[in-house]
């Protein structure tokens, strides 16, 4: 091949590659009128969006196991009204674009009427408008951004808004007499929501240093906050991986102020609490409590261990995750597999006792005030209830 031809070929290939990268990730195609809900072959297909790649996969993958355990249990006991339940998993990657195309795939290709997820607030917020327009229920067991409250009629969650989390932490900060709190926040809807609502509830002043996703160097942010003589430092990442680097660099910088953790950081037992147990001793955060007395709680823990050979992580995320599928099962059994009917049914759910606690939906599809974050503290390398 002549040199000039080779050059042309290379340019051509580059252009083709470039164009193929522009696949319409934001497409939001209304589903055709004649599309039928997926109940073929005596199966009910429910969509699921979880972060199965990227750093957030550290809670996305366990969530997948938990949903499969719940699915197996439902199918073992005769499925949903005699039909077998099937889950269609899509990777939301904790990213807006990915989640948006995942929701479109589930609605247009898999024809689902209910989607479990997303997990990250970025995923749920990206999927909400599409689900809403297509009259498909989007039910998140983990997203906590306050913005989700207003995201639409078809958008539900059985995980409380971050206003609750930040409220609990801010109340603690106020009770300790902190005047000046520094926050290190990842630029993600979840962590930004936590920071915003903390700033609103906290009585003193707040310095919020943000960092882009995938940052690995926090030294200057830490120095800046330490120099501002903050009374406490609020570690507010989206993923356990960033929480670990921040804590590592805080320790290396010898920062000795009380630490406040968001629920990702305080839930990161393997990544943060155990490896840095000396340094994080006494740190305070808030987690959603789970219902240890529920008959199925131990079943879930045993089933998870049997399946993965590991202890179940993030119980405060995994408990609502487990409940979600049973709530959806009950809904389909009551009203059939139809997005709008399921939506109407969910608003009537009151006082449902599950592994995660007692759930009643309010008028926004959020759990009501009885279902809230509780303050936790790290004592002797373990996360315990704060008195």
């Amino acid at each position, binding site marked *: 091949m002549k040199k000039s031809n080779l050059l042309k070929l290379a340019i051509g290939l580059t252009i083709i590659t470039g164009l193929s990268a522009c696949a319409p990730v934001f497409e939001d195609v209304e589903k055709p009128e004649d599309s039928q809900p997926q109940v073929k072959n005596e199966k009910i297909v429910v969509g699921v969006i979880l972060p199965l790649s990227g750093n957030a996969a550290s809670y996305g993958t366990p969530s997948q196991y938990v949903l499969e355990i719940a699915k197996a249990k439902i199918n073992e006991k005769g499925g949903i009204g005699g039909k077998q339940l099937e889950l269609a998993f899509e990777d939301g990657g904790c990213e807006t674009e990915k989640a948006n195309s995942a929701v479109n795939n589930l609605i247009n290709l898999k024809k689902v009427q209910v989607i479990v997820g997303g997990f990250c607030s970025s995923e749920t917020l990206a999927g909400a408008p599409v689900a809403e327009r297509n009259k498909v229920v989007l039910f998140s067991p983990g997203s906590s951004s306050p913005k989700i409250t207003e995201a639409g009629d078809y958008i539900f969650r059985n995980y409380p808004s971050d206003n609750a989390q930040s409220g609990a932490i801010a109340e603690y900060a106020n009770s300790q007499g902190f005047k000046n709190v520094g926050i290190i926040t990842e630029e993600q809807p979840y962590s930004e929501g936590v920071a915003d609502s903390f700033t609103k509830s906290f009585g003193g002043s707040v310095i919020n240093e943000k960092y882009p996703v*995938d940052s*690995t160097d926090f*030294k*200057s942010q830490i120095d*800046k906050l330490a120099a501002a003589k903050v009374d406490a430092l609020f570690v507010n990442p989206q993923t356990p*991986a960033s929480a670990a680097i921040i804590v590592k660099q805080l320790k290396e910088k010898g920062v000795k102020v009380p630490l406040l953790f968001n629920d990702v950081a305080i839930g990161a037992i393997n*990544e943060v609490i155990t*490896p840095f147990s000396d340094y994080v001793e006494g740190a305070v955060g808030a987690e959603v409590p789970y219902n240890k007395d529920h008959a199925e709680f131990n079943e879930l823990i045993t089933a998870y261990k049997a399946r993965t050979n590991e202890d179940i992580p993030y119980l405060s995320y995994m408990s609502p995750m487990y409940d979600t599928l049973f709530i959806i099962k009950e809904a389909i059994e009551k009203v059939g597999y139809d997005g709008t009917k399921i939506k109407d049914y969910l608003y009537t759910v009151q006082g449902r006792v599950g592994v995660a606690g007692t759930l009643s939906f309010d008028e926004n599809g959020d759990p009501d005030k009885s279902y809230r974050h509780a303050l936790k503290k790290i004592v002797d390398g373990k996360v315990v209830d704060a008195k």
Partner: protein
Amino acid sequence: MRKNDPPHLYGEGGFLLCYNMTSMDFELLTKYALNGLIQGSIYAMLALGLSLIYGVLRFANLAHGEYALIGAYAFYTFHVILGWPLIPSILLGIVVLFAVTIALQYLTFMPVKNAHPFILLVISIALGIFLKNLLLIIFQARSRLITNESVIYQITESISITQTQIIIILVAIASMIGLTVFLKKTKIGKAIRAVSDNREVTAVLGIPINRIITVTFLISSLLAGAAGILVAYDQNLHPNLGAFFTIKSFAAVILGGIGSVPGAVLGGYILGFAENIFIALPFVETNYKDAVAFFILIIVLYIKPTGLFGGKTEEIARH
């Protein structure tokens, strides 16, 4: 998003009127400078390798960051996954990196070494995508943090540095001096410079071009791998970091002047310092770290389009 910024920093309209240097803590400035020195050392090491390849093959190897990651992941595999001691793991990491470098060089760059540098550039883009995805398949898309207990040295009461960070600075300085001496004093180094200067004439003189290209690639990947391993040990490791390494080192090379060794080093340090010192200003948010660094790059290129140590524009255009 500060509720209570000190009022003296701002004028009546809420805009910054002047910045009082005395209010900037000297100690804090020292800390930022230290952070800049550490980050700059990493960028300088990466930029050196990139600049060297440009000199010989006249193209920017856009897979440079992925070479750094291969070294780092090989090290991680030996040290953390297999639990081998530190030094053998580093050495084996470099051996793996060398093997991969030679294999890739013969498979991808060598067959087209005489083609237009544009072809090499496109190949390097493809290679970068391939290597990144290979790492994603093998090591999954998640961060690997080496939770080592690096010794912490307290310089003053509030300024501290870890042993790994001192090593980063020392390795960077050693690389610069070593590379300069190598290029100026050794036979192979002189040959590399000769090839950079004029490949055709050098070939006529009987210098084995292929061997020189291989050696250049090995030195470049050694520098990249060293930077990658140090970042893995000090910060963390993720298959997506390659693009970050490439962009930062590319910026450093452009800043310093394409093809210039001292330029690459200076570019790396300017970038490292800029990222860390400008955010000290109270009106610059820390999430603008990268933006500040690239803003400086734009300003420098506006004033001196060939970079700080770059040759004349015609000279670069000629190649």
